[in-house]
């Protein structure tokens, strides 16, 4: 059976330390000021320092104003002038504000650049969330300035990621994977995306016929502020569906074999008039920004992006660009963050109307996943396997692989049973008609023909009679006038009165109301008719008239 599966393999952060070193430094400074710890010994600091020397030139070209600004306010806070700063107006967009006594509440303030009295303070109950959110905001700003090609190059390639690949009992390699760039997660790899025309299918269920890959995950290369968990994310989706990896990804662990069994369910709803869903999304006034088939998720994201471009003048980084727009960054749109948060608040409260515009898709596919984890590699096989894999990898990598750098993933169908849920109209035209006919036949022993008969008699025939009468009247009136004009009325009127006796007119004679109701009797089969009434009065009269001469005779005699 043509069962296909497609996976988005884990997305990983690129080694874009040169762009981010300044931001990282500021974040760490913030951490120091708020929480009073320094992580000078951490890997990040080391790499930042290393990159700083090489990427310094680049930074002077694109100075990160906001970050510097943030550091100023942060130090202000640290010196204990909390109240004053909260009361005062921030001209710059974003900064981390520690508004609480010690370190209980942390957040950042966003202000409207044009009208600086309008500010919104976003607070988080935990500092972890606040710093991650703040970092993400700045990260988007920086990434928006880097062209896509550079980003793709900086991210990891399929070669780096895949150590082994095995599908349906056959070896596979990076050619079976297609890359797409996710704005936040970096490069993602989709197995069996169908882009080169062929879609692989599994022959049977079971783990040996599924996809088995060993992934190389370099923990040291992770951005410490953006992601805090190690591992990879995987998503199972259809070939023409967009993988929303941040929304519905399944995470897999390192140093373990994760086997994911799938059950496939396909659902199909009836579109109008049965339910309010859309087949292709073409009837929805929101342009599909993703180059994939319609889904509710895509519509909501596109709708938000459109609203963002309309009201803020630039596009949000995590979603694709509409035509003619460009991604937001500080330099061009100093106001965008305040605008974005306001808009997002509206979106969540369903005030943007996106939830009303976007409809469900009529057909959708769903994979139910069952995940089980085993220890991998086992202690006895660890030795030889790590060596072989290290050697395979050896051309690019100098260090020996560690088992925490590896994740084994198996994705397979548990069985090839496909569950297909489809809606069918309960009453089709055929059923409606047959119900109609059944009822009509049962109660009236009547059919369409008899309905038409009724229509014919009561509407068409009676109408035609009325029309004919009117016509005759009109004709008579006309003739009268003409006759009055020409001066020969006495000749025309007797002919007209005897119109139905006129042999010329007989053909046009439409049946009268009475003849139509009582079916006309065929002329060639003479049925016995009732004889003319034989009234006694008539006989009496005749007797009387006959008798009268008698009596006269008698009287004469």
């Amino acid at each position, binding site marked *: 059976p043509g069962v296909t599966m497609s996976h988005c393999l884990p997305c990983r952060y690129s080694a874009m330390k040169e762009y981010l070193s300044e931001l990282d430094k500021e974040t760490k400074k913030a951490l120091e000021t708020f929480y009073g710890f320094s992580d000078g010994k951490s890997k990040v600091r080391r790499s930042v320092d290393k990159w700083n020397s090489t990427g310094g030139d680049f930074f002077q070209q694109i100075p990160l104003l906001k970050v510097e600004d943030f550091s100023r306010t942060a130090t202000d806070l640290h010196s204990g002038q909390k109240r004053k700063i909260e009361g005062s107006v921030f001209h710059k967009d974003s900064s981390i504000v520690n508004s609480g006594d010690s370190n209980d509440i942390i957040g950042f303030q966003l202000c409207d650049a044009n009208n600086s009295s309008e500010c919104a303070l976003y607070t988080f109950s935990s500092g972890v969330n606040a710093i991650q959110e703040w970092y993400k905001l700045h990260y988007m700003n920086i990434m928006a300035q880097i062209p896509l090609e550079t980003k793709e190059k900086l991210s990891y390639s399929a070669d780096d990621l895949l*150590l*082994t*690949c*095995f599908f*349906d*009992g*056959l*070896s*596979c390699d990076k050619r079976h994977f297609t890359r797409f760039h996710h704005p936040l997660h970096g490069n993602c790899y989709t197995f069996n995306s169908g882009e080169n025309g062929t879609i692989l299918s599994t*022959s*049977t*269920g*079971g*783990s040996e016929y599924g996809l088995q890959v*060993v992934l190389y995950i370099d923990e040291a290369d992770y951005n410490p502020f953006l992601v805090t968990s190690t591992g990879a994310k995987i998503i199972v989706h259809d070939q023409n569906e967009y993988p929303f990896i941040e929304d519905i990804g399944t995470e897999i662990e390192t140093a373990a*074999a994760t*086997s994911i069994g799938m059950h496939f369910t396909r659902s199909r709803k009836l579109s109008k008039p049965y339910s309010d869903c859309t087949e292709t999304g073409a009837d929805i006034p929101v342009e599909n920004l993703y180059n994939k088939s319609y889904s509710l998720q895509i519509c909501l994201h596109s709708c938000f992006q459109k609203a963002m471009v309309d009201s803020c003048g630039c596009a949000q980084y995590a979603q694709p660009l509409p035509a003619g727009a460009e991604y937001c960054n500080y330099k061009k749109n100093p106001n965008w963050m305040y605008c974005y948060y306001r808009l997002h608040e509206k979106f969540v409260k369903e005030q943007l109307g996106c939830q009303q515009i976007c409809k469900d898709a009529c057909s959708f596919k769903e994979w139910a996943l*069952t995940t*089980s984890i*085993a*220890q*991998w*590699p*086992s*202690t*006895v*096989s660890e*030795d*030889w*396997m790590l*060596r*072989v*894999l*290290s*050697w*395979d990898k050896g051309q690019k990598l100098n260090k020996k692989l560690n088992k925490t750098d590896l994740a084994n993933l198996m994705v397979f169908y*548990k*069985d090839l*049973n496909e569950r297909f849920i489809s809606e069918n109209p309960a009453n089709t035209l*055929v*059923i409606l*008609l*047959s*119900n109609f*006919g*059944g009822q*009509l*036949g049962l109660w009236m*022993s009547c*059919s*369409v*023909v*008899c309905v*038409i*008969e009724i229509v014919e008699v009561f509407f068409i025939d009676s109408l035609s009679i009325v029309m004919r009468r009117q016509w005759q009247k009109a004709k008579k009136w006309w003739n009268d006038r003409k006759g009055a004009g020409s001066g020969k009325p006495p000749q025309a009127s007797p002919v007209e009165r005897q119109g139905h006796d006129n042999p010329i007119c007989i053909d046009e004679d*439409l*049946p009268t109301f009475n003849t139509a109701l009582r*079916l*006309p009797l*065929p002329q060639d089969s003479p049925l016995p008719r009732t004889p003319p009434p034989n009234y006694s009065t008539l006989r009496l009269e005749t007797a009387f008239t006959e008798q009268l001469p008698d009596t006269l005779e008698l009287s004469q005699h």
Partner: protein
Amino acid sequence: EGLIEFYDSFKDMFEFFCKNTTIHGTIRLVCSDSNRMKTAFWTLLLLSSFGMLYWQFALMFSQYWAYPVVLTMSMHSEPKMFPAITICNLDPYRFELVSEHLVQLDRMAEESITFLYGINTSARLFHLNDRNIHVKDLSNIGNLSRSSFKLSQNFSLLRTTDLRSGKKHSSVGFRLCNATGGNCFYKTYSSGMDAILEWYRFHYMNIMSQLPVIINISDHEEQIEDMVYSCQYDGEPCRPSDYVHFHHPVFGSCYTFNSKGTDPFWTATKPGIPYGLSLILRAEQKDHIPLLSTVAGVKVMIHNHNQTPFLEHEGFDIRPGIATTIGIQQDEVNRLGGNYGKCTTNGDDVNVKLLYNNSYTLQACLHSCFQHIMVQKCGCGYYYYPLPPGAQYCDYNKQPAWGHCFYQLYSRLRNHHLNCFDQCPKPCRESLYKVSAGTAKWPSAKSQDWVRQALRHQNGYNSTSNRKDIAKVTIFYQQLNYQSVNESPLLTENLLLSSMGSQWSLWFGSSVLSVVEMFELLIDTLVLSLLFCYQRLRSKKTLR
């Protein structure tokens, strides 16, 4: 003429029909003789309602012949048996009969790895094996002579490099040829790990083929206590007779609990974790064959009674050092079969002879089908599937070309060129277990000491290190009522007839008898035309 009064002309006949038939509207056709427009109108009306009727009939029949089904979902809650549970320790035996060959094979693998990856990589690769190899003695099957098995050197691992798209692309594989040495192809893998695993598996099958087909393992000193430290069901300890033991060449020794499903002990009384099956398992890794499987832990499979567990398909992995709670929910699917879809009730009507002496499943049928073709084409049986009578397992000392034959056949199966998928229908009645699991660390750091102490005292557990080598599994019903999905026909003959009658009465106001009347008219027309022909012929004759 005389006995049978007949019409004088077609016109007579037609008029009689129109006036006396039960079909509505025909009488109008005749009676509106005087008005041509009306006649035409009624003819058109009659024809169009006739057309409508048959259009509706066509729709109805096409719907009927598509044999649509509706699924009715119902919840049942009658008491039922706990499903069969199979657990395997992923630690296959090294049988005494073949242990020497396995050691040789390990050496050979070591040499290959050294050859492929340099000397230093495999320096201490097999130190574990040299030290303590747990050998399974099969001495009570004494009459087996040592066969003259020799490891073949023909299938050595090679590295092939080719320049593809300007980049050096190397792959590792081994060569397979047919009996005459021709038609060779390389079974290559982009990763050396996959290649070595497949290569090892290939040799392993050859070695294991020497073993007798039926090994009576249950007689052996192997006890369930060595693997299952504790077993509780519904708060009561399991009874020693509750399990069936078998040995799987890859997954090691396996135990199936409640395999028959007849013992009232295993009736599921209540849903919930305390009323499920709770096991403490040993997940030791020391006896592993390191090149056969690389994962550690325990495999658990939940399946129906009397069903062969295909662990490679649906096994659930359990990690050592972790307590896993597996909640199950049962779904039952009943298919109609017959015209409504291909399925089989018990596998009797399937062309393939099942090699597993358990109830029919699709997987079992596919495996049997492949094995039959394999025996027919290659002359020997694939080691992981059971043997048909009279065949023997493949061994490259006896059939030097079987690998060539097997891998080609296997890829044909995958590409659906073998008709196994057509021959094996789905079973009409299927039970599916939906599984959802949660994990926690076990034993916790605080309780670790006393748990180990207790196990040591009671079960002879003898590990002192902190290595994770025990696991806990709890399998329970999330809810006792199960969903059953039944197929039932959407359109039965009754429904079809009644809706046909309804259509008829809607368009013509008539019944089956009017159809008979139409037939009568047809027959009459025929008879009348024959009569006329006869009359004309006779009149011609008399004229002459």
